[in-house]
């Protein structure tokens, strides 16, 4: 009764947060009982909840007690499994360490309890009402396709991909891909093709950062040469003039090479990002086909919910390398989280 009076008197404000690599996105919707009155979106270049974010949110929430703060689960140890029964869940994840829920009693989604506590703790000044799994967003967003297709469905975020394979609304496979870790894994696997059976954790522990090896080591070498030149100038020995000339030439050559490396690095980065995504997806599909726990079927199409604006390269990789029909649909994550929060309240 009191709630009805309250909802008649006050607007509902939905604050939707999702954390990107180096900034936090806040999407706000102010609703009447039925209609959208106002929506606003802002990015804050920070990784933690700061005063600016709190002030920004408070400017919308100060007039109403009916505000709901939702966040997209940023945990790296989350996922979904094609089972919902308690007994079968243990095959896919440790339910004692995870918080999980069932989607329409068909499949389950889970996240680490520790990560959940950490999110709650980092947002304790603000308080949270809903924490949603990206797999739920994905399932809702592609509801029309999931119900009638056998396909791969992706939710692409800046540093992660929620990958799921549905066959007429039955989940066959799902994996949450953390692109940073995947990238390191991929580099490692390129070097050593025999390491297919090494687990992700082992790879993380043993991996070598090849990025830093490629460029930084070269620059370190240059520094060493620089030191040699200093020593020469102090001692001023004539006999070594030829050697100096040789060294200068070598230095010039190395400098030219480093400039070339630098100009290449940007295009390499873009190439890396797309290839990183592609290889992560490819590995994931490979796991789906090879892992006996999953009912593997031949996949012909892939639907991508794109929140970052993926390049055409990724599309062409997927089309040319693994012969998939690629369909990309733009997604506003803030808006989708808001929709889900509104559905939760009904």
């Amino acid at each position, binding site marked *: 009764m009191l*709630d009805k009076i*309250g909802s008649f008197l006050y607007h509902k404000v939905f604050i939707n947060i999702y954390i990107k690599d180096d900034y936090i996105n806040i999407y706000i919707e102010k609703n009447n009982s039925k209609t959208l009155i106002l929506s606003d979106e802002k990015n804050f270049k920070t990784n933690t909840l700061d005063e600016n974010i709190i002030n920004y949110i408070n400017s919308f929430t100060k007039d109403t*007690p009916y505000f709901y703060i939702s966040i997209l689960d940023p945990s790296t140890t989350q996922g979904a499994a094609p089972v919902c029964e308690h007994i079968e869940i243990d095959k896919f994840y440790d339910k004692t360490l995870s918080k999980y829920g069932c989607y329409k009693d068909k499949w389950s*989604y889970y996240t680490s309890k520790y990560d959940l506590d950490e999110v709650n703790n980092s947002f304790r000044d603000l308080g949270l009402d*809903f924490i949603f799994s990206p797999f739920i967003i994905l399932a809702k967003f592609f509801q029309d396709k999931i119900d009638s297709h056998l396909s791969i469905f992706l939710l692409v975020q800046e540093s992660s991909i929620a990958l799921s394979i549905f066959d007429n609304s039955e989940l066959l496979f799902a994996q949450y891909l953390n692109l940073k870790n995947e990238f390191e894994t991929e580099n490692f696997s390129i070097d050593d093709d025999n390491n297919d059976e090494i687990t992700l954790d082992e790879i993380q522990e043993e991996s070598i950062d090849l990025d830093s090896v490629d460029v930084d080591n070269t620059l370190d070498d240059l520094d060493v040469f620089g030191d040699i030149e200093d020593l020469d100038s102090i001692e001023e020995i004539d006999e070594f003039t030829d050697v100096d000339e040789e060294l200068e030439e070598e230095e010039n050559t190395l400098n030219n090479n480093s400039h070339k490396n630098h100009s290449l690095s940007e295009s390499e980065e873009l190439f890396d990002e797309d290839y990183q995504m592609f290889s992560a997806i490819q590995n994931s599909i490979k796991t789906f086909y090879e892992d006996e726990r999953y009912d593997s079927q031949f996949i012909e199409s892939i639907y991508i919910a794109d929140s970052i604006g993926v390049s055409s390269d990724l599309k062409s990789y997927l089309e040319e390398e693994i012969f998939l029909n690629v369909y990309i649909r733009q997604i506003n994550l803030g808006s989708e989280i808001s929709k*889900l929060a509104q559905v939760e309240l009904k």
Partner: protein
Amino acid sequence: MTYSYINPREKTLITSELKLLFIFFFITIIMLLMTYLFLTYKNYSFKQEHINIEKTKQNLTEDLNEMNSDIKFIEKQSAVSKKIFTQNTVLKDSITNMFDLVPERITLSEAKLLKNGLILYGITPNKDVYNFMLQAPLRSIFHNTYSSFYPAQNGWLFFVSKNYIEDDISEDDSNEH
């Protein structure tokens, strides 16, 4: 239908400020109610006290009236007693005077004091002593004096002297003979 890992915090129309306001109003109302109850009780108490005082007052008035009547009665009694005392004093004086009147040679054997008279019985050596020494003063006091004598064995005379105030002469006369 809940897909969130956590449950939403309870939203209430009553914010902390409103809660504080409600608490303030609640306390105020409670205080007013208590004051009202206290005053109602006091009012009732005063009314009861008033009734009691009225009753007491009535009782006291009744007592006062009773006491006044008692006082009047006592005053009357006092007046009567005073009168009696006065009469007794008068009587005593009269008796004293009477005995003073009796000479040494006459001996009284009986005296009767009447409302309007005096009857004396006694013995006298002779009539003259009686006439001169007793009858003469008695006549000065009483309007009518009647004396009768009869002889005693030793030669003296017994006498009966009846003395009356004037109003009762006729009556006394009739009583005498």
